[in-house]
Protein backbone atom coordinates (compact mmCIF):
# COMPACT_ATOMS: atom_id res chain seq x y z
CA UNK A 1 0.00 0.00 0.00
CA UNK A 2 1.19 3.54 -0.55
CA UNK A 3 -1.39 6.03 0.81
CA UNK A 4 0.02 8.34 -1.91
CA UNK A 5 3.00 8.72 0.37
CA UNK A 6 5.84 8.07 -2.02
CA UNK A 7 6.81 4.76 -0.45
CA UNK A 8 5.55 1.19 -0.70
CA UNK A 9 5.97 -1.96 1.37
CA UNK A 10 5.80 -4.97 -0.91
CA UNK A 11 6.46 -8.68 -0.80
CA UNK A 12 9.16 -8.76 -3.46
CA UNK A 13 10.24 -11.74 -5.53
CA UNK A 14 13.87 -12.27 -6.41
CA UNK A 15 14.17 -12.96 -10.14
CA UNK A 16 17.93 -12.86 -10.55
CA UNK A 17 20.95 -12.98 -8.29
CA UNK A 18 24.51 -13.00 -9.52
CA UNK A 19 27.97 -12.52 -8.13
CA UNK A 20 29.84 -9.41 -9.21
CA UNK A 21 33.37 -9.39 -7.83
CA UNK A 22 33.07 -9.28 -4.03
CA UNK A 23 29.35 -8.39 -4.22
CA UNK A 24 25.97 -9.81 -5.16
CA UNK A 25 23.63 -8.09 -7.58
CA UNK A 26 19.95 -8.80 -6.88
CA UNK A 27 17.02 -8.08 -9.17
CA UNK A 28 13.72 -8.08 -7.29
CA UNK A 29 10.19 -7.74 -8.61
CA UNK A 30 8.81 -4.97 -6.41
CA UNK A 31 5.68 -3.45 -7.96
CA UNK A 32 5.25 0.28 -7.38
CA UNK A 33 8.86 1.10 -6.48
CA UNK A 34 10.14 2.06 -9.92
CA UNK A 35 7.45 4.69 -10.51
CA UNK A 36 8.39 6.47 -7.28
CA UNK A 37 12.17 6.05 -7.01
CA UNK A 38 14.85 8.57 -7.92
CA UNK A 39 18.67 8.17 -7.85
CA UNK A 40 20.10 8.40 -4.32
CA UNK A 41 17.10 6.85 -2.59
CA UNK A 42 17.36 3.49 -0.86
CA UNK A 43 15.45 0.31 -0.09
CA UNK A 44 15.11 -1.34 3.33
CA UNK A 45 14.87 -5.13 3.24
CA UNK A 46 13.69 -7.45 6.00
CA UNK A 47 15.97 -10.46 6.40
CA UNK A 48 15.42 -14.06 7.41
CA UNK A 49 11.75 -14.41 6.52
CA UNK A 50 8.58 -13.53 8.46
CA UNK A 51 9.51 -15.32 11.71
CA UNK A 52 13.17 -14.30 11.67
CA UNK A 53 14.87 -13.39 14.94
CA UNK A 54 16.91 -10.85 12.99
CA UNK A 55 14.50 -7.94 13.18
CA UNK A 56 16.32 -4.94 11.82
CA UNK A 57 16.03 -4.04 8.17
CA UNK A 58 19.10 -3.81 5.96
CA UNK A 59 19.26 -0.71 3.79
CA UNK A 60 20.82 -0.47 0.32
CA UNK A 61 20.97 2.38 -2.12
CA UNK A 62 18.93 1.61 -5.22
CA UNK A 63 21.15 0.58 -8.14
CA UNK A 64 18.40 0.94 -10.72
CA UNK A 65 14.70 0.44 -11.28
CA UNK A 66 12.62 -0.66 -14.24
CA UNK A 67 8.91 0.17 -14.26
CA UNK A 68 7.63 -2.60 -16.54
CA UNK A 69 9.82 -5.57 -17.28
CA UNK A 70 8.53 -9.00 -18.22
CA UNK A 71 7.82 -9.63 -14.53
CA UNK A 72 6.41 -6.24 -13.54
CA UNK A 73 8.40 -3.40 -11.98
CA UNK A 74 11.83 -4.39 -10.74
CA UNK A 75 14.40 -3.06 -8.34
CA UNK A 76 18.14 -3.77 -8.50
CA UNK A 77 20.38 -3.72 -5.44
CA UNK A 78 24.03 -4.50 -4.77
CA UNK A 79 24.73 -6.33 -1.53
CA UNK A 80 27.99 -7.12 0.25
CA UNK A 81 27.73 -10.17 2.51
CA UNK A 82 29.17 -8.78 5.74
CA UNK A 83 27.06 -10.36 8.47
CA UNK A 84 24.24 -12.83 9.04
CA UNK A 85 21.56 -10.54 7.55
CA UNK A 86 23.37 -9.70 4.35
CA UNK A 87 24.47 -13.34 4.00
CA UNK A 88 20.80 -14.35 4.09
CA UNK A 89 20.12 -11.85 1.30
CA UNK A 90 23.01 -13.04 -0.87
CA UNK A 91 21.84 -16.62 -0.30
CA UNK A 92 18.43 -15.90 -1.86
CA UNK A 93 17.65 -17.71 -5.09
CA UNK A 94 15.28 -16.92 -7.96
CA UNK A 95 11.62 -16.94 -6.88
CA UNK A 96 12.46 -16.51 -3.17
CA UNK A 97 10.51 -13.73 -1.54
CA UNK A 98 11.88 -10.75 0.34
CA UNK A 99 10.00 -7.95 2.08
CA UNK A 100 10.90 -4.57 0.56
CA UNK A 101 10.17 -1.04 1.77
CA UNK A 102 11.15 1.54 -0.86
CA UNK A 103 11.92 4.11 -2.05
CA UNK A 104 13.18 5.85 1.10
CA UNK A 105 15.15 8.99 1.83
CA UNK A 106 16.04 12.06 -0.19
CA UNK A 107 17.37 11.69 -3.70
CA UNK A 108 20.39 13.47 -5.18
CA UNK A 109 19.31 17.02 -6.05
CA UNK A 110 19.82 17.64 -9.77
CA UNK A 111 21.35 20.76 -11.33
CA UNK A 112 18.91 23.04 -13.12
CA UNK A 113 21.49 23.86 -15.82
CA UNK A 114 23.38 21.43 -18.08
CA UNK A 115 26.70 21.53 -16.20
CA UNK A 116 29.65 19.13 -15.97
CA UNK A 117 29.26 16.74 -13.00
CA UNK A 118 31.74 14.52 -11.17
CA UNK A 119 30.40 11.24 -9.78
CA UNK A 120 32.53 9.42 -7.20
CA UNK A 121 31.91 5.89 -5.94
CA UNK A 122 33.81 3.98 -3.28
CA UNK A 123 33.47 0.19 -3.44
CA UNK A 124 29.86 -0.80 -4.07
CA UNK A 125 28.90 2.74 -3.07
CA UNK A 126 29.02 3.31 -6.83
CA UNK A 127 25.75 1.35 -7.16
CA UNK A 128 23.36 4.34 -7.55
CA UNK A 129 25.71 6.44 -9.70
CA UNK A 130 25.08 4.83 -13.11
CA UNK A 131 21.37 5.56 -12.93
CA UNK A 132 22.22 9.06 -11.70
CA UNK A 133 24.61 9.50 -14.66
CA UNK A 134 21.86 8.54 -17.07
CA UNK A 135 19.46 11.08 -15.55
CA UNK A 136 22.13 13.80 -15.59
CA UNK A 137 23.03 13.16 -19.23
CA UNK A 138 19.35 13.28 -20.21
CA UNK A 139 19.42 16.80 -18.81
CA UNK A 140 22.42 17.72 -20.93
CA UNK A 141 25.06 17.40 -18.21
CA UNK A 142 28.42 15.84 -18.99
CA UNK A 143 29.41 13.17 -16.53
CA UNK A 144 32.85 12.20 -15.38
CA UNK A 145 33.05 9.22 -13.06
CA UNK A 146 35.71 8.21 -10.54
CA UNK A 147 35.50 4.74 -9.04
CA UNK A 148 37.76 3.62 -6.21
CA UNK A 149 38.14 0.56 -4.03
CA UNK A 150 40.69 -1.34 -1.97
CA UNK A 151 41.25 -3.85 -4.78
CA UNK A 152 39.88 -4.80 -8.19
CA UNK A 153 37.29 -7.27 -6.84
CA UNK A 154 35.84 -4.53 -4.66
CA UNK A 155 35.16 -2.18 -7.54
CA UNK A 156 31.60 -2.18 -8.78
CA UNK A 157 30.41 -1.27 -12.25
CA UNK A 158 33.56 -0.31 -14.15
CA UNK A 159 32.15 -1.62 -17.43
CA UNK A 160 28.79 0.02 -16.80
CA UNK A 161 30.58 3.26 -15.99
CA UNK A 162 32.22 3.38 -19.41
CA UNK A 163 28.74 3.29 -20.96
CA UNK A 164 27.09 5.66 -18.47
CA UNK A 165 29.77 8.35 -18.22
CA UNK A 166 31.71 10.51 -20.66
CA UNK A 167 34.97 9.63 -18.96
CA UNK A 168 35.96 7.19 -16.20
CA UNK A 169 38.94 7.05 -13.84
CA UNK A 170 39.58 4.00 -11.66
CA UNK A 171 41.73 3.85 -8.54
CA UNK A 172 42.60 0.96 -6.23
CA UNK A 173 44.58 1.06 -3.00
CA UNK A 174 46.73 -1.86 -4.14
CA UNK A 175 47.00 -0.92 -7.80
CA UNK A 176 45.25 -4.13 -8.95
CA UNK A 177 43.14 -2.01 -11.33
CA UNK A 178 43.46 1.54 -12.59
CA UNK A 179 45.67 4.00 -10.81
CA UNK A 180 47.18 3.03 -7.45
CA UNK A 181 45.87 5.28 -4.68
CA UNK A 182 42.69 6.91 -3.50
CA UNK A 183 39.95 8.75 -5.36
CA UNK A 184 41.07 11.93 -3.61
CA UNK A 185 44.44 11.62 -5.39
CA UNK A 186 42.86 11.96 -8.82
CA UNK A 187 39.95 14.26 -8.00
CA UNK A 188 41.85 17.59 -8.09
CA UNK A 189 42.81 16.94 -11.71
CA UNK A 190 39.21 15.92 -12.56
CA UNK A 191 37.79 19.13 -11.06
CA UNK A 192 40.43 21.24 -12.86
CA UNK A 193 39.78 19.57 -16.20
CA UNK A 194 35.97 19.64 -16.04
CA UNK A 195 35.33 22.78 -14.02
CA UNK A 196 32.44 20.85 -12.50
CA UNK A 197 30.43 22.89 -9.98
CA UNK A 198 28.98 19.76 -8.37
CA UNK A 199 30.16 16.32 -7.27
CA UNK A 200 27.98 13.40 -6.29
CA UNK A 201 29.48 10.74 -4.06
CA UNK A 202 28.51 7.54 -2.34
CA UNK A 203 30.81 5.28 -0.34
CA UNK A 204 32.57 5.05 3.02
CA UNK A 205 32.41 8.11 5.30
CA UNK A 206 36.15 8.80 5.07
CA UNK A 207 35.92 8.97 1.29
CA UNK A 208 32.87 11.25 1.43
CA UNK A 209 34.76 13.61 3.71
CA UNK A 210 37.71 13.78 1.31
CA UNK A 211 35.42 14.30 -1.72
CA UNK A 212 33.77 17.18 0.19
CA UNK A 213 37.17 18.72 0.95
CA UNK A 214 38.55 18.44 -2.58
CA UNK A 215 35.29 19.73 -4.08
CA UNK A 216 35.37 22.78 -1.79
CA UNK A 217 39.01 23.45 -2.77
CA UNK A 218 37.81 23.68 -6.38
CA UNK A 219 34.72 25.76 -5.67
CA UNK A 220 32.35 22.82 -6.12
CA UNK A 221 29.54 21.53 -3.93
CA UNK A 222 29.59 17.85 -2.93
CA UNK A 223 26.30 16.01 -2.57
CA UNK A 224 27.11 12.87 -0.59
CA UNK A 225 24.97 9.82 0.19
CA UNK A 226 26.03 8.69 3.67
CA UNK A 227 26.34 5.22 5.16
CA UNK A 228 25.04 5.00 8.72
CA UNK A 229 23.60 1.89 10.34
CA UNK A 230 19.83 2.00 10.51
CA UNK A 231 17.35 -0.14 12.41
CA UNK A 232 14.14 0.80 10.60
CA UNK A 233 15.01 2.94 7.55
CA UNK A 234 11.68 4.78 7.79
CA UNK A 235 12.42 7.47 10.37
CA UNK A 236 11.06 6.06 13.62
CA UNK A 237 14.01 4.49 15.45
CA UNK A 238 16.36 7.49 15.75
CA UNK A 239 19.49 5.34 15.49
CA UNK A 240 20.92 6.62 12.17
CA UNK A 241 21.49 10.21 13.27
CA UNK A 242 24.52 12.40 12.57
CA UNK A 243 25.41 16.01 13.29
CA UNK A 244 24.50 18.16 10.29
CA UNK A 245 24.33 21.95 9.97
CA UNK A 246 21.03 23.30 8.69
CA UNK A 247 20.61 26.19 6.25
CA UNK A 248 20.52 28.47 9.32
CA UNK A 249 23.97 27.22 10.36
CA UNK A 250 22.59 25.45 13.43
CA UNK A 251 23.74 21.85 13.99
CA UNK A 252 21.21 19.13 14.83
CA UNK A 253 21.43 15.37 15.15
CA UNK A 254 19.41 14.47 12.05
CA UNK A 255 18.18 11.12 10.78
CA UNK A 256 20.12 10.00 7.74
CA UNK A 257 17.13 7.89 6.61
CA UNK A 258 14.65 10.76 6.19
CA UNK A 259 16.68 14.00 6.15
CA UNK A 260 19.35 12.11 4.16
CA UNK A 261 20.88 9.88 2.98
CA UNK A 262 22.00 12.66 0.64
CA UNK A 263 23.45 15.70 2.35
CA UNK A 264 25.55 18.60 1.17
CA UNK A 265 28.99 17.43 2.27
CA UNK A 266 29.90 20.84 3.70
CA UNK A 267 26.98 20.63 6.13
CA UNK A 268 28.15 17.40 7.80
CA UNK A 269 30.20 17.85 10.98
CA UNK A 270 32.98 15.49 9.89
CA UNK A 271 35.14 16.33 12.90
CA UNK A 272 32.65 14.49 15.14
CA UNK A 273 33.44 11.12 13.51
CA UNK A 274 36.27 9.04 14.96
CA UNK A 275 36.95 5.39 14.23
CA UNK A 276 33.33 4.22 13.93
CA UNK A 277 32.02 6.46 16.71
CA UNK A 278 30.30 9.81 16.23
CA UNK A 279 30.01 12.32 19.04
CA UNK A 280 27.62 15.22 19.54
CA UNK A 281 29.36 18.57 18.87
CA UNK A 282 28.97 20.98 21.80
CA UNK A 283 27.04 23.54 19.76
CA UNK A 284 24.42 21.00 18.63
CA UNK A 285 20.80 21.84 19.51
CA UNK A 286 20.07 20.18 22.86
CA UNK A 287 23.64 18.87 23.31
CA UNK A 288 24.43 17.31 26.69
CA UNK A 289 25.48 19.87 29.26
CA UNK A 290 27.90 19.36 32.11
CA UNK A 291 25.90 18.12 35.08
CA UNK A 292 22.88 17.58 32.84
CA UNK A 293 22.07 14.56 30.78
Amino acid at each position, binding site marked *: *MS*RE*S*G*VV*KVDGEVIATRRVGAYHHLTIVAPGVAELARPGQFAAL*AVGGPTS*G*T*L*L*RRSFSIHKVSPSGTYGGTLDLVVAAKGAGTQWLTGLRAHDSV*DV*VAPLGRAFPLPTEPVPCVLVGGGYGSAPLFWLAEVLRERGCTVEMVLGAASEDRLFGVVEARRAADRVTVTTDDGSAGQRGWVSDVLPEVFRRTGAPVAYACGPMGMLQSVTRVAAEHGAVAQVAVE*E*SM*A*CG*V*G*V*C*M*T*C*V*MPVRGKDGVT*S*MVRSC*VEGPVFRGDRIRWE*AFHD*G*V*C*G*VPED*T*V*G*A*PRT*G*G*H
Partner: protein
Amino acid sequence: MAVDMSVTFTGRTLPNPVMTASGCAANGRELHRFFDVATLGAFVTKTVMMDARSGRGTPRMAETASGMLNSIGLQGPGIHAFVRKDLPWLKSVGARVLVSIAGNTAGEFADVARVLADSDAFDCVVGVEVNISCPNVANRGLVFACDPLASGKVVALVREQLPRDVPIFAKLTPDVTDIVSIADAAVKSGATGLTMINTLLGMVIDTDLLRPQLGGITGGLSGPSIRPVAVRALWQVTAAMREGRVQRVPLIGVGGVRTGRDALELIAAGATCVQVGTATFNDPTAPQRVLTELTELAGSHGVDRITELVGVAHDRMVVP
Protein backbone atom coordinates in the same frame (compact mmCIF):
# COMPACT_ATOMS: atom_id res chain seq x y z
CA MET B 1 -20.35 -12.05 15.06
CA ALA B 2 -17.53 -9.51 15.17
CA VAL B 3 -15.72 -9.20 18.48
CA ASP B 4 -16.19 -5.84 20.21
CA MET B 5 -12.58 -4.63 20.43
CA SER B 6 -13.29 -1.43 22.38
CA VAL B 7 -11.69 -0.86 25.76
CA THR B 8 -12.56 1.65 28.48
CA PHE B 9 -10.33 3.08 31.21
CA THR B 10 -10.80 6.09 33.47
CA GLY B 11 -13.96 6.99 31.57
CA ARG B 12 -12.21 6.96 28.17
CA THR B 13 -13.25 4.50 25.49
CA LEU B 14 -10.83 3.52 22.77
CA PRO B 15 -12.03 1.65 19.66
CA ASN B 16 -9.43 -1.07 20.21
CA PRO B 17 -6.60 -1.92 22.59
CA VAL B 18 -3.63 -1.64 20.19
CA MET B 19 -1.18 1.24 20.46
CA THR B 20 2.25 2.17 19.24
CA ALA B 21 5.02 2.13 21.86
CA SER B 22 6.87 5.25 22.89
CA GLY B 23 10.11 5.75 20.99
CA CYS B 24 9.20 3.18 18.33
CA ALA B 25 6.89 5.30 16.19
CA ALA B 26 8.35 8.85 16.32
CA ASN B 27 5.39 11.27 16.41
CA GLY B 28 3.20 9.75 13.74
CA ARG B 29 4.00 11.26 10.35
CA GLU B 30 6.50 8.58 9.37
CA LEU B 31 4.14 5.63 10.02
CA HIS B 32 1.14 7.47 8.58
CA ARG B 33 2.78 6.85 5.19
CA PHE B 34 2.09 3.14 5.75
CA PHE B 35 -1.24 3.09 7.60
CA ASP B 36 -3.74 5.50 9.11
CA VAL B 37 -2.51 6.06 12.67
CA ALA B 38 -6.04 7.05 13.71
CA THR B 39 -7.14 3.41 13.29
CA LEU B 40 -5.14 2.44 16.39
CA GLY B 41 -6.64 2.57 19.85
CA ALA B 42 -4.07 5.24 20.65
CA PHE B 43 -0.84 6.65 19.28
CA VAL B 44 1.92 6.82 21.89
CA THR B 45 4.40 9.62 21.23
CA LYS B 46 8.16 9.62 21.71
CA THR B 47 9.07 10.69 25.23
CA VAL B 48 9.28 14.47 25.40
CA MET B 49 11.11 16.50 28.05
CA MET B 50 11.15 20.22 28.78
CA ASP B 51 13.99 21.28 26.48
CA ALA B 52 15.23 20.11 23.11
CA ARG B 53 17.70 17.25 23.43
CA SER B 54 20.22 16.05 20.87
CA GLY B 55 20.38 12.56 22.31
CA ARG B 56 23.65 10.62 22.33
CA GLY B 57 26.24 10.07 19.65
CA THR B 58 26.41 6.92 17.57
CA PRO B 59 26.43 3.94 17.42
CA ARG B 60 23.08 4.05 19.19
CA MET B 61 21.96 0.60 18.24
CA ALA B 62 23.12 -3.00 18.44
CA GLU B 63 21.17 -5.90 17.05
CA THR B 64 20.68 -8.88 19.38
CA ALA B 65 19.00 -12.27 19.06
CA SER B 66 15.29 -11.47 18.52
CA GLY B 67 15.79 -7.92 19.62
CA MET B 68 18.05 -4.93 19.86
CA LEU B 69 19.76 -2.58 22.25
CA ASN B 70 19.23 1.14 21.93
CA SER B 71 20.88 4.09 23.54
CA ILE B 72 19.16 7.08 21.95
CA GLY B 73 19.37 9.35 24.99
CA LEU B 74 15.81 10.72 24.77
CA GLN B 75 16.40 12.84 21.67
CA GLY B 76 13.50 15.19 21.18
CA PRO B 77 12.32 18.68 20.32
CA GLY B 78 11.18 19.71 23.81
CA ILE B 79 7.58 20.07 24.98
CA HIS B 80 7.02 23.55 23.50
CA ALA B 81 7.92 22.43 19.96
CA PHE B 82 5.94 19.22 20.54
CA VAL B 83 2.70 21.02 21.39
CA ARG B 84 3.25 23.52 18.57
CA LYS B 85 3.99 21.02 15.78
CA ASP B 86 3.53 17.36 16.63
CA LEU B 87 0.38 17.25 18.75
CA PRO B 88 -1.69 19.44 16.37
CA TRP B 89 -0.68 17.18 13.49
CA LEU B 90 -1.78 14.06 15.37
CA LYS B 91 -5.06 15.78 16.19
CA SER B 92 -5.53 16.80 12.54
CA VAL B 93 -5.48 13.17 11.40
CA GLY B 94 -7.89 12.12 14.13
CA ALA B 95 -5.45 10.18 16.31
CA ARG B 96 -6.11 9.56 19.98
CA VAL B 97 -2.82 10.38 21.67
CA LEU B 98 -1.09 9.00 24.73
CA VAL B 99 1.72 11.48 25.38
CA SER B 100 4.92 10.11 26.93
CA ILE B 101 6.71 12.62 29.16
CA ALA B 102 9.90 12.62 31.22
CA GLY B 103 12.10 14.93 33.27
CA ASN B 104 15.57 15.12 34.74
CA THR B 105 13.91 15.90 38.07
CA ALA B 106 10.46 15.19 39.48
CA GLY B 107 9.66 18.89 39.12
CA GLU B 108 10.52 18.83 35.39
CA PHE B 109 7.93 16.07 34.81
CA ALA B 110 5.33 18.39 36.34
CA ASP B 111 6.48 21.35 34.23
CA VAL B 112 6.19 19.29 31.06
CA ALA B 113 2.71 18.09 32.07
CA ARG B 114 1.58 21.69 32.68
CA VAL B 115 2.71 22.89 29.23
CA LEU B 116 0.93 19.90 27.70
CA ALA B 117 -2.30 20.51 29.63
CA ASP B 118 -2.31 24.18 28.57
CA SER B 119 -1.82 23.40 24.88
CA ASP B 120 -4.43 24.00 22.17
CA ALA B 121 -4.55 20.42 20.87
CA PHE B 122 -4.83 18.86 24.34
CA ASP B 123 -8.32 17.55 23.55
CA CYS B 124 -6.81 14.76 21.39
CA VAL B 125 -4.86 13.50 24.41
CA VAL B 126 -6.44 10.37 25.91
CA GLY B 127 -3.80 10.05 28.60
CA VAL B 128 -0.27 10.80 29.74
CA GLU B 129 2.36 8.09 30.02
CA VAL B 130 4.94 9.03 32.62
CA ASN B 131 8.29 7.58 31.57
CA ILE B 132 9.88 7.12 34.96
CA SER B 133 12.51 4.79 33.53
CA CYS B 134 14.93 7.64 33.03
CA PRO B 135 17.75 8.84 35.30
CA ASN B 136 16.99 11.15 38.22
CA VAL B 137 19.66 13.85 38.06
CA ALA B 138 18.92 14.82 41.68
CA ASN B 139 19.68 11.29 42.89
CA ARG B 140 23.02 10.40 41.28
CA GLY B 141 21.25 9.36 38.08
CA LEU B 142 19.33 6.52 39.72
CA VAL B 143 16.36 5.63 37.54
CA PHE B 144 13.13 6.98 39.10
CA ALA B 145 11.33 3.69 38.46
CA CYS B 146 13.85 1.79 40.60
CA ASP B 147 12.76 3.70 43.69
CA PRO B 148 9.16 3.58 45.00
CA LEU B 149 9.47 7.00 46.69
CA ALA B 150 10.83 8.75 43.60
CA SER B 151 8.26 7.02 41.39
CA GLY B 152 5.44 8.12 43.68
CA LYS B 153 6.71 11.68 43.85
CA VAL B 154 6.84 12.06 40.06
CA VAL B 155 3.33 10.68 39.64
CA ALA B 156 1.92 12.90 42.41
CA LEU B 157 3.47 16.05 40.91
CA VAL B 158 2.23 15.22 37.40
CA ARG B 159 -1.24 14.44 38.82
CA GLU B 160 -1.47 17.97 40.23
CA GLN B 161 -0.87 19.50 36.80
CA LEU B 162 -3.45 17.52 34.83
CA PRO B 163 -7.24 17.69 34.90
CA ARG B 164 -8.66 14.92 37.11
CA ASP B 165 -10.25 13.09 34.20
CA VAL B 166 -6.96 12.69 32.30
CA PRO B 167 -5.54 9.19 32.81
CA ILE B 168 -1.93 8.88 33.95
CA PHE B 169 -0.01 5.70 33.16
CA ALA B 170 3.31 5.19 34.94
CA LYS B 171 5.72 3.22 32.73
CA LEU B 172 7.67 0.76 34.82
CA THR B 173 11.03 -0.88 34.31
CA PRO B 174 11.40 -4.61 34.94
CA ASP B 175 14.94 -3.97 36.25
CA VAL B 176 13.82 -3.99 39.88
CA THR B 177 13.74 -6.55 42.67
CA ASP B 178 10.00 -6.22 43.25
CA ILE B 179 7.92 -4.59 40.52
CA VAL B 180 4.75 -4.93 42.61
CA SER B 181 6.06 -2.45 45.21
CA ILE B 182 6.84 0.12 42.48
CA ALA B 183 3.39 -0.45 40.95
CA ASP B 184 1.81 0.05 44.36
CA ALA B 185 3.71 3.31 44.98
CA ALA B 186 2.71 4.69 41.57
CA VAL B 187 -0.97 3.81 42.01
CA LYS B 188 -1.11 5.18 45.57
CA SER B 189 0.33 8.46 44.25
CA GLY B 190 -2.40 8.86 41.68
CA ALA B 191 -1.47 6.78 38.63
CA THR B 192 -4.75 5.65 37.05
CA GLY B 193 -2.91 2.93 35.15
CA LEU B 194 0.48 1.31 34.57
CA THR B 195 2.46 0.56 31.43
CA MET B 196 4.70 -2.47 31.63
CA ILE B 197 7.48 -2.92 30.64
CA ASN B 198 10.19 -0.53 29.58
CA THR B 199 13.43 -1.93 28.16
CA LEU B 200 15.89 -3.96 30.19
CA LEU B 201 19.40 -2.63 30.63
CA GLY B 202 21.87 -4.56 28.51
CA MET B 203 25.24 -4.39 26.84
CA VAL B 204 26.92 -5.74 23.71
CA ILE B 205 30.63 -5.97 23.03
CA ASP B 206 31.86 -5.87 19.45
CA THR B 207 34.14 -8.91 19.25
CA ASP B 208 36.00 -7.66 16.18
CA LEU B 209 36.99 -4.40 17.83
CA LEU B 210 36.77 -5.79 21.40
CA ARG B 211 35.03 -2.67 22.66
CA PRO B 212 31.46 -1.79 23.68
CA GLN B 213 29.32 -1.62 20.56
CA LEU B 214 27.15 1.28 21.75
CA GLY B 215 28.56 4.78 22.09
CA GLY B 216 26.59 5.03 25.33
CA ILE B 217 28.11 1.67 26.48
CA THR B 218 24.85 0.25 27.91
CA GLY B 219 21.42 0.36 26.29
CA GLY B 220 17.82 -0.75 26.59
CA LEU B 221 17.01 -4.26 25.37
CA SER B 222 13.73 -4.60 23.48
CA GLY B 223 12.07 -6.91 21.00
CA PRO B 224 10.52 -10.40 21.11
CA SER B 225 13.34 -11.68 23.35
CA ILE B 226 11.94 -9.67 26.30
CA ARG B 227 8.31 -10.71 25.86
CA PRO B 228 8.42 -13.37 28.61
CA VAL B 229 9.66 -10.68 31.01
CA ALA B 230 6.68 -8.48 30.11
CA VAL B 231 4.28 -11.39 30.57
CA ARG B 232 5.83 -12.12 33.97
CA ALA B 233 5.64 -8.49 35.14
CA LEU B 234 2.02 -8.13 34.00
CA TRP B 235 1.19 -11.44 35.68
CA GLN B 236 2.77 -10.47 39.01
CA VAL B 237 1.09 -7.06 39.21
CA THR B 238 -2.26 -8.45 38.05
CA ALA B 239 -2.05 -11.22 40.66
CA ALA B 240 -1.33 -8.63 43.37
CA MET B 241 -4.35 -6.61 42.23
CA ARG B 242 -6.61 -9.66 42.20
CA GLU B 243 -5.44 -10.54 45.71
CA GLY B 244 -6.18 -7.00 46.91
CA ARG B 245 -2.54 -6.14 47.64
CA VAL B 246 -2.57 -3.34 45.06
CA GLN B 247 -5.51 -1.19 44.03
CA ARG B 248 -6.94 -2.35 40.69
CA VAL B 249 -6.03 -0.12 37.73
CA PRO B 250 -5.85 -0.91 34.00
CA LEU B 251 -2.51 -2.12 32.64
CA ILE B 252 -0.97 -1.45 29.26
CA GLY B 253 1.22 -4.34 28.16
CA VAL B 254 4.34 -3.67 26.13
CA GLY B 255 7.40 -5.78 25.41
CA GLY B 256 8.19 -7.91 22.38
CA VAL B 257 4.78 -7.89 20.71
CA ARG B 258 5.16 -8.79 17.05
CA THR B 259 1.94 -10.66 16.25
CA GLY B 260 -1.69 -10.83 17.35
CA ARG B 261 -0.78 -13.97 19.27
CA ASP B 262 1.84 -12.05 21.25
CA ALA B 263 -0.68 -9.30 22.01
CA LEU B 264 -3.18 -11.88 23.26
CA GLU B 265 -0.51 -13.34 25.53
CA LEU B 266 -0.05 -9.97 27.27
CA ILE B 267 -3.83 -9.50 27.48
CA ALA B 268 -4.28 -12.95 29.02
CA ALA B 269 -1.64 -12.05 31.62
CA GLY B 270 -3.61 -8.94 32.61
CA ALA B 271 -3.11 -6.14 30.06
CA THR B 272 -6.15 -4.15 28.92
CA CYS B 273 -4.22 -2.48 26.10
CA VAL B 274 -1.13 -3.59 24.19
CA GLN B 275 1.64 -1.55 22.60
CA VAL B 276 3.68 -2.62 19.57
CA GLY B 277 7.25 -1.35 19.74
CA THR B 278 10.41 -2.80 18.22
CA ALA B 279 8.41 -4.96 15.78
CA THR B 280 7.60 -1.69 13.99
CA PHE B 281 11.26 -1.42 12.95
CA ASN B 282 10.92 -4.78 11.23
CA ASP B 283 7.50 -4.02 9.76
CA PRO B 284 6.23 -0.42 9.66
CA THR B 285 2.68 -1.75 9.41
CA ALA B 286 3.09 -3.94 12.51
CA PRO B 287 0.68 -2.06 14.86
CA GLN B 288 -2.12 -2.26 12.31
CA ARG B 289 -1.33 -5.90 11.45
CA VAL B 290 -1.26 -6.87 15.13
CA LEU B 291 -4.73 -5.32 15.53
CA THR B 292 -6.07 -7.35 12.59
CA GLU B 293 -4.51 -10.56 13.87
CA LEU B 294 -5.66 -9.93 17.45
CA THR B 295 -9.24 -9.31 16.28
CA GLU B 296 -9.28 -12.61 14.37
CA LEU B 297 -7.71 -14.48 17.26
CA ALA B 298 -10.20 -13.08 19.78
CA GLY B 299 -12.97 -14.26 17.47
CA SER B 300 -11.51 -17.75 17.38
CA HIS B 301 -11.72 -17.87 21.18
CA GLY B 302 -15.45 -17.27 20.93
CA VAL B 303 -15.69 -14.10 23.02
CA ASP B 304 -18.05 -11.18 22.33
CA ARG B 305 -15.70 -8.57 23.76
CA ILE B 306 -11.89 -8.41 23.87
CA THR B 307 -12.12 -7.32 27.51
CA GLU B 308 -13.35 -10.81 28.43
CA LEU B 309 -9.80 -12.01 27.76
CA VAL B 310 -8.05 -9.52 30.07
CA GLY B 311 -6.24 -11.54 32.75
CA VAL B 312 -8.07 -14.68 31.67
CA ALA B 313 -5.01 -16.89 32.22
CA HIS B 314 -5.26 -16.28 35.98
CA ASP B 315 -8.55 -18.19 35.96
CA ARG B 316 -7.34 -21.03 33.76
CA MET B 317 -4.56 -22.46 35.90
CA VAL B 318 -4.83 -26.19 36.35
CA VAL B 319 -4.14 -27.17 39.94
CA PRO B 320 -3.78 -30.96 40.12
